[in-house]
C-alpha cells in the first residue's frame, strides 16, 4: 500500500475535469492546455495537445517535495472507451490491479491499458517524474487501420483484447525514445505546432503496434534510462556549443558516471556525445552561412576553431560540401 502521502483522484489523465481537480489539489495554475505548479510541494507542468478527434497527448514533467499519489479511477460505464498508452521516461512506481506494486524500469516502461482500468502512480519525493501519455479511442484506431493487412489486424485484435483485460507492459525501442525526445525538445511548449505533434503521435502509435505484432523484427532497449539527466546533458552541450565541456564535466554536472552517460546518450540519440555535439554545431553553422553569408574564416573563429581548415573539414564531413561551396550555391538557389 502507498505510504501516507498526498493523493488526488481523477478519472481521466488530461481532460478538463482532471486538470481542475489537479489544479485544486496541488495548487496549480491552469492556462489553456497547460497546468503549471510552482509551490513548495510541487514544481513542473502538465501540457496537453489534441491532435485528431479521438487522439490526444499530454506530457507530465514535475518534481515534488513529498510523495504524491495520483489515482486514476476506472472510467464510468457510460464513458467513451479509450486506450491509454503511457511512456514513463524515468523509473517510477505504479500500483495496478489489487494495489499490486509495479516498478517501472527500462524493461517495461511503456504501458497500454484501457480507461476502464484503474491505476495509481506515485510522484516520489525529489524524483523527477516524466510521463508522456497518449489517449486514443478504438474508433480512431480502426479508422486509421481500415486498409491494414488482415494478418496485422488479427494480431492487433488479439493484443487489444488482452489490453482490455489487463495492463500490457513493454520496453521502449530506440525509435520511441527518439520520437519522444523530438516531442520534448521541439514542441509541447506554449507554441505547440499541431502538425508536428500529430505526425509524431502517428509514429508513436505505429511504432508501438509494430513492436507488439512483430517482436523479432523490432529491437527494444531493456535498460532503464534516467531521462531528465540526459536532457540536462544535452542542454549543457547546446549551451556550450562554442567551447565544449568535457564528458567528465557533463557527467559530474548531471550526476551520472561517465560510462553510463556515454552508453545511455548513444542509446537515445544513436550517436556519441562528440558526434552529437559536432552535428549540432554544423547545423547552426549552416544556418548562419545561409542567413548571413559570413566568411569561412570568421565562421571558424566564431565556432572556436583555431584553423579554418578544421572547420571546413567538419562541415564537409557532415554535409558533403564545403561551407564556401554552400555560400556560392546559395546565391543561385534558396537552400533550406
Amino acid at each position, binding site marked *: 500500500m502507498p505510504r501516507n502521502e498526498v493523493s488526488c483522484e481523477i478519472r481521466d489523465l488530461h481532460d478538463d475535469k482532471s486538470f481542475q481537480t489537479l489544479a485544486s489539489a496541488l495548487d496549480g495554475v491552469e492556462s489553456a492546455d497547460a497546468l503549471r505548479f510552482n509551490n513548495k510541494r510541487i514544481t513542473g507542468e502538465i501540457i496537453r495537445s489534441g491532435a485528431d478527434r479521438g487522439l490526444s497527448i499530454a506530457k507530465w514533467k514535475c518534481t515534488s517535495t513529498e510523495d504524491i499519489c495520483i489515482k486514476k479511477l476506472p472510467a464510468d460505464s457510460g464513458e467513451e472507451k479509450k486506450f491509454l498508452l503511457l511512456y514513463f521516461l524515468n523509473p517510477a512506481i505504479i500500483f495496478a490491479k489489487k494495489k499490486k506494486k509495479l516498478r517501472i524500469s527500462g524493461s517495461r516502461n511503456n504501458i497500454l491499458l484501457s480507461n476502464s482500468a484503474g491505476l495509481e502512480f506515485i510522484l516520489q519525493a525529489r524524483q523527477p517524474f516524466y510521463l508522456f501519455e497518449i489517449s486514443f479511442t478504438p474508433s480512431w484506431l480502426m479508422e*486509421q*487501420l*481500415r*486498409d*491494414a*493487412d488482415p*494478418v*496485422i489486424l488479427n494480431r492487433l485484435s488479439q493484443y487489444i483484447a488482452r489490453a482490455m483485460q489487463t495492463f500490457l507492459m513493454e520496453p521502449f525501442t530506440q525509435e520511441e525514445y*527518439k520520437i519522444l525526445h523530438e516531442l520534448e525538445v*521541439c514542441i509541447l511548449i506554449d*507554441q505547440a*505546432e*499541431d*502538425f*508536428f505533434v*500529430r*505526425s*509524431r503521435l*502517428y*509514429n508513436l*502509435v*505505429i511504432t508501438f*503496434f*509494430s513492436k507488439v505484432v*512483430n517482436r523479432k*523484427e523490432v529491437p527494444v532497449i531493456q535498460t532503464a534510462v534516467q531521462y531528465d539527466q540526459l536532457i540536462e546533458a544535452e542542454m549543457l552541450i547546446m549551451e556550450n*556549443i*562554442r567551447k565544449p565541456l568535457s564528458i567528465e564535466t557533463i557527467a559530474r554536472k548531471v550526476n551520472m558516471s561517465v560510462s553510463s552517460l556515454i552508453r545511455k546518450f548513444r542509446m537515445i540519440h544513436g550517436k556519441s556525445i562528440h558526434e552529437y555535439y559536432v552535428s549540432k554545431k554544423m547545423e*547552426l553553422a549552416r*544556418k*548562419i552561412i*545561409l*542567413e*548571413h*553569408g*559570413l566568411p569561412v574564416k*570568421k565562421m571558424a573563429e*566564431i*565556432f572556436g576553431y583555431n584553423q579554418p581548415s578544421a572547420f571546413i573539414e567538419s562541415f564537409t564531413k557532415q*554535409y*558533403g*560540401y564545403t561551407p564556401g*561551396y554552400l*555560400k556560392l*550555391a*546559395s*546565391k*543561385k*538557389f*534558396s*537552400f*533550406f
Partner: protein
Amino acid sequence: METSFSHSCNFHQLPKLFRKKSGGLFILEPPLGSGSLQVIHVARGLEAWLWNCSFNHEVELFSNEMSQSRNRYFTLLCFLDTHGFKLSHADAMLGENIRWNTAFLSNNCPYKMEISRKVYGRCLSISFSETWFNHNIAAERERITDLRKKVTELKTNSLVGTLNDSEQRLVQELMSVSWKKWFGTFYIRSLVLRIVSDVLYRIMQRESFSINHLCVQKRVPEIEKYLQ
C-alpha cells in the same frame, strides 16, 4: 548544346508515361524504360509518389506555372541519389556539381527537371494542395503565419536542401519493401507527415531565405553573444 527530350511533360502528368496496374501502381515498360511508380493517396489533398524506375531516353518534367489553375499545390522531392537528375529554376541549374537531394517546389514556380537516360531513379515525391496546407498546418499563430508567408513566397521561388540522417532513413524506409506496410496507409501517412513536418519546421526555423550581407558586421557580435 540543346538537348532534345524524347519525353517532355508536366510533372503531374508523369504517371501517363506508365501503364496503370492495380491500385496506385504504375509500371514503366519498354521501350520507355523499366521500373514502377507507386501513387499513394495519403489524405485528401496529400499524395505520395514512390519512384523506382529508369527511362531509356532523356525525360524532361516541367511545372505548370503558366497555367491559370486555381489549384495551387506544393511538391517536396526527396531523392536517395540525385545522380542523373538536374533541376533548373529560371536561369539557374542544380546539376551534379551542386549537391542537393531535396527540393520544395510550388506548381507556380518555373522549374524543370531533367532525367538522364538509363539512370535508376529512387525518389519520394510528396505533393500537397494549398487547401490541405491551410487546413492541416496553418493555424492562427504568429509562427505559422510566418511559415505560411514563406511557403506562399514559393509560388515564384523554390527551395533546395539536403536530407539529414533521420529524414534519409525515413525515405529509405518508405522506399523499401517493409513488413510495416501491412499497416496500410496509416503507416505511410505517419512517415509522410513526419517528413513534411520536418521540412516545414526547418523552413519555419529559418529567419530568411536571402543572405543579409548588409548587416554582417552588425550581426557578428549578436551571433557571438548567442553562442556564448
